[in-house]
Structure formats: structure tokens, C-alpha cells
């Protein structure tokens, strides 16, 4: 019970990753009202891409160069896969209704998971920690907080999330493209009549979401193993985070991410077996949907006949 500070820090760090993924969910859901189940897989592919760049780089590269390089390339990989998914899978069925879109999203998610399982025969990958000063070794270093060790690499999670959220906030609130995005999310038909190219807005929304999911994948890849199924649970939890914070709201997604991250660590702190950790997020979701269906920071929308 005395290592409260450890679980709080740990929750904040993992919450930052959930927040990054949740931002992509909230953007996509805000625009086309689709739960993009494949979003967790963009995150997984980002992690794999980061590892691929690490393998390509010469072994003596300083972590100060290679860590930003890995993060950027993961973001690019997430962006490419997100745009590709949107163009190939979602665009043709956009008019076929919500159920068709949701089922396609589930299909894409399973497809990407199974394609990724061809990499290294689905065996988990990890940054090698053999030589001192390499990324793997740096990632395994930890400092003691509240009685237990926290990996120092986790401390870059929160600043990265804050910087990316601010950039996203600027894009959505201060640029012309952001204004177009908000218009499409309010009323796609009216936005189209005002001369907004909806296809392009949706594509660029997926692009933004993919970048952030890819970067989140790179961050998680530093501290734990990379495997094909790694995106599934964080993807669900990030969606829950987006709903808890208020879907369609950027500050809401970040707040929800931190809430889910902290709660699932507090559950372990309270002495509940680790196996039930993943249950906590779903219970939070049910409670929030019952008490405040629009989410903590969401705006109340009434159903129109």
C-alpha cells in the first residue's frame, strides 16, 4: 500500500500513451462516426516500424539521435497504414451504413494483426540491451519511485503526449484545415455544399490519427515487447478513454487517457489481482455511459427525428 507514488507515476506514463491513441479515435469518430477498431493496429505497426529502423541503423548510433529517429519513422509508418486503410477499406463502404463500417473495421483489425504475425513468426521482439549506451540498455534503466523501479524512458511519454496534443490543438482550432474538419464533423452535407472536399478532410484526419498512434507504438516499444496482438487491448482502452473524456473532444481524449491509465494502476495498488486489471477500464466505461453518456468534457447532443 505504501508504493502509491509508483502506481501513480506508472499510471500517468501509460495514460499518456492511451491519450495519444485516444486522440486518433476521437478525431476519426468525430468526423465519420466510426469506431476505428484498426486504430490499435496502427499503433502496433508503428512499434514494428520503429524496431525496423533500429535494426537498419548502425549499431554504434547514439540514443540521442536514434530515439527521435525511431519516433519519427513510427509516426510515418502509422500515417501510411492509416491512410492506406482508409482508402482501401473504409472509403468504398462509407455509404453502406454504420454496421457495415464497424464490421469492416473489425475485419481490418484482424487482418493487420494476422499479417503482422508473419513478422518473426509472431515471436515478440525487444530492443537488445547487451551493450551499455545502446537504446535497449537505456530503456531498461530505471529509477526507484515509491519503492519500485520505473523505467526512465517512461518519463518521455508525458512530454511527447503534451507536445503532440498542443500541435493537434493548433491544427484543429487555428488552421483552415482544422476549421474544415470541425465543419465536416458538425454536418458533412452542409460542409460539402460550402465547398469543402470531404474525402480529403477524412483522409487527412486518418493521417493525423495514424501519426499519433504510430508514435504511441514507438514509445511503448521502448519499454516492453513488440508483438502482433499488442494493439488490441490498448486500442480498446484508448477508445474507452475517448468515450470517458467525451468523444470528439481533444482535451477530453487526453483527460480520459490519463484517467484510464491511473485507474487501472490504482486497481493493482488496491490489492486486486493483476489479472483483473483490464476489467477495470470496461467497468469505468459502463459507469460513465450510464451517468454521463456524452463523456466528461463532451457536449450534450439531443437525438433528432
Amino acid at each position, binding site marked *: 500500500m505504501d508504493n502509491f507514488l509508483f502506481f501513480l507515476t506508472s499510471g500517468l506514463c501509460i495514460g499518456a500513451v492511451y491519450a495519444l491513441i485516444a486522440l486518433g479515435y476521437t478525431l476519426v469518430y468525430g468526423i465519420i*462516426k466510426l*469506431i476505428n477498431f484498426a486504430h490499435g493496429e496502427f499503433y502496433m505497426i508503428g512499434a514494428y516500424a520503429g524496431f525496423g529502423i533500429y535494426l537498419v541503423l548502425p549499431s554504434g548510433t547514439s540514443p540521442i539521435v536514434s530515439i527521435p529517429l525511431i519516433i519519427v519513422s513510427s509516426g510515418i509508418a502509422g500515417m501510411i497504414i492509416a491512410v492506406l486503410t482508409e482508402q482501401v*477499406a473504409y472509403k*468504398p*463502404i462509407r455509404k*453502406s*451504413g*454504420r*454496421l*457495415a463500417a*464497424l*464490421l*469492416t473495421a*473489425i*475485419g*481490418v*483489425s*484482424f*487482418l493487420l*494483426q*494476422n*499479417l503482422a504475425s508473419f513478422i518473426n513468426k509472431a515471436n515478440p521482439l525487444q530492443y537488445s540491451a547487451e551493450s551499455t549506451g545502446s537504446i535497449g540498455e537505456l530503456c531498461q534503466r530505471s529509477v526507484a519511485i515509491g519503492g519500485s523501479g520505473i523505467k526512465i524512458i517512461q518519463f518521455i511519454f508525458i512530454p511527447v503526449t503534451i507536445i503532440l496534443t498542443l500541435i493537434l490543438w493548433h491544427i484543429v482550432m487555428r488552421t483552415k484545415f482544422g476549421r474544415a474538419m470541425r465543419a465536416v464533423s458538425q454536418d458533412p452535407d452542409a460542409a460539402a455544399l460550402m465547398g469543402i472536399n470531404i474525402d480529403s478532410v477524412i483522409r487527412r484526419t486518418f493521417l493525423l490519427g495514424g501519426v499519433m498512434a504510430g508514435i504511441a507504438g514507438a514509445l511503448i516499444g521502448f519499454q516492453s515487447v513488440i508483438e502482433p496482438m499488442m494493439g*488490441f487491448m490498448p486500442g*480498446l482502452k484508448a*477508445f*474507452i478513454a475517448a*468515450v470517458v473524456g467525451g468523444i470528439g473532444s481533444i482535451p477530453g481524449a487526453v483527460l480520459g487517457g490519463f484517467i484510464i491509465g491511473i485507474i487501472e494502476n490504482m486497481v493493482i495498488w488496491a490489492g486486486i*489481482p493483476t*489479472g*483483473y486489471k*483490464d*476489467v477495470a*477500464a*470496461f467497468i469505468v*466505461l*459502463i459507469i460513465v*455511459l*450510464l451517468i454521463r*453518456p456524452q463523456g466528461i468534457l463532451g457536449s450534450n447532443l439531443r*437525438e433528432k*427525428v
Partner: protein
Amino acid sequence: MSWYEFHSVLGSIGILAILALSLNVICGMTGLLQLGQAGFFAIGAYAAGLSSIYLTFPELGMLNFVISASVAMIAAGIFSIILGIPCLRLKGDYLAIVTLGFGEIVRLILINLNFSGGKMYPGEKIGGATGIKFTEFPGDIWPKYPDYSAEFAKWWFIWILVAVIFILLINIKRSSFGRAMMCIREDEIAAQAMGINLSKYKLMAFLLSAVIAGFAGALFFHKELAVTPGKFNLLCSIEILLMIVLGGLGSFSGAICGAIILGMTPYLLRHVEVFGYRIGEHQQLIYALLLIVLIRLSPNGIFGMNEVPAWLKIFFKGKKQIPKNETA
């Protein structure tokens, strides 16, 4: 394929068909997206397994199956009401996520749950990741009844039950309850305006669906005599959903047809190789591709919403005689 294996495959397909029928009640007829049907399936299988360990009376023979199946159906029903009362107020995607979460929660809890061995395996721990399994045959435990085997669910028995449930559901579809459910699917607000109690009918549909899925779980246990929590993952729920999408959402004969097609596919394809990869080992990949392609090419499935597909009617009767907007 030996006869024994063939019978086993037939039995598995029958259980899949019952699951597809059960999901069709809630997804196809009522239009509520349920992604956690594996959860009720798991509850049914576990309840049947536990009741065969704690509540078996070998002198009763086949009646043990009735006891065990009733326990399974009651357990699934209770859980569906506990889940349904708060969650059926949610709409569309949110309900899908909550039910998906329910399916995962059931699986996670079953992995972490342990039971005592009861009167069959005194002193042993069962449950956990290995699940419930008859390590000794029941006939060996009760020497007085050497022929007693809890393996009640033979393939023909399962298929008789598929037929019974199919006829039951077709009749429900034609009743006022079925029409109310279909009305909710088409337009909730209009249904409410016509005096349909939304929460009551949604809960009833949810309960019916869960009870049938629980029954399928009981059949599953009495066919395999073993159950592990790992089987009831999200893929299991998605597989069932894929069957009814393939058959046509809302069509019960379509659901059975989809179950037969998807259930046979892995066995037919297991020796086929593409680029040195065995297709049978990549069943999930095939399912994922199939789901994406099916929705794109034929969103209404083979049967559409009808029990007898329109193309079959055209084939037999000619085009002119088909009345428009016919259902069931």
C-alpha cells in the same frame, strides 16, 4: 477424414449453427450489435461443466443433460439480465463496445477463477487457464454405472436441437414479439410511437439470445467433455457474427447456412497450401479477409432478410409472382 472425426466436425458445426441462430435474434432481428456472444457461450459451457461435476446423478442417465442444460440456460439468462438492464439503454456503437468488453471480462475472469473439485474430483482444484475437464471418464468414477458417459451431445442429437430451435425462432419471428423486435431494428423512434416498450422488448430479445447461447455452451461441454477459457476470445464472437453476415442479417435459415459454410471451410482447406503456407493454420487471416470482402460485395448476405432467398423464389416461381416487401 475418419468417421469419428467427421461426426465431431458435424457436431461442432451444429453448435456453431445454434450460436448463429442465437446471435441472429439480437443482431439480425433487433438490430443491436452484440460483440460478446462468446461470453454467454462461455457462461453456458462453464455452468454445464460445473453442474456435471457437482450435480451428476449417474442413475438418471440422459436426465443429467437436462439438469446441466437448464443450469447453463439459467446462468446465461441471469447474466444477460444483469448486463442488459444497465447497458441496453446504450445505442449502436457504444452497446457494441460494452458487449465486447463483457465478452473479454468473462474470459479474463474465467482464467483467474478456481473451483474445488466437488464430489467427482475431491481435493483437486479445477478452473483457471486449463478450464474444466473430465480427467477420468465418469464411468470409471462410478463403477456401478460403467456405461455412463457424460458425452450426451452426439452429432445427430445436436442437429435435432438445431431444427427445434430453428422452428421455435421462426415462430417467434412471426409472432407479435418478433414483429416488435423487427420494428425496433427498422426505427426505434417509430417503434416507440407505435407503443412498443423499447427497453422491455430489447431486454427480452437479449435474454432469449443469451439463453440459446448458454444452451449451445451446454451442448459444447457435453460434446467435448472439456472447456478452456481460451476458446471464448473475441475471435469466437466475430466468427459467429461473420456467419450471420454471410447468411444475411435477420434470416434464421441464412444463419444456419452461414454456420455450415464457415464451419466446413477450415476442414476443407486444411491441406491446401499457398506459397508454402498452410491455409488451415491461418484461419483468422481468411476470416478477416472474408469479412472485409463480404461486406463490400454483398452486404445483405446470401439470404438477405428472408427465410427463403429472393433468388430461389425467382428460380422456382418466376419473377412476376413475388409480392413486394415480403418478409419471413
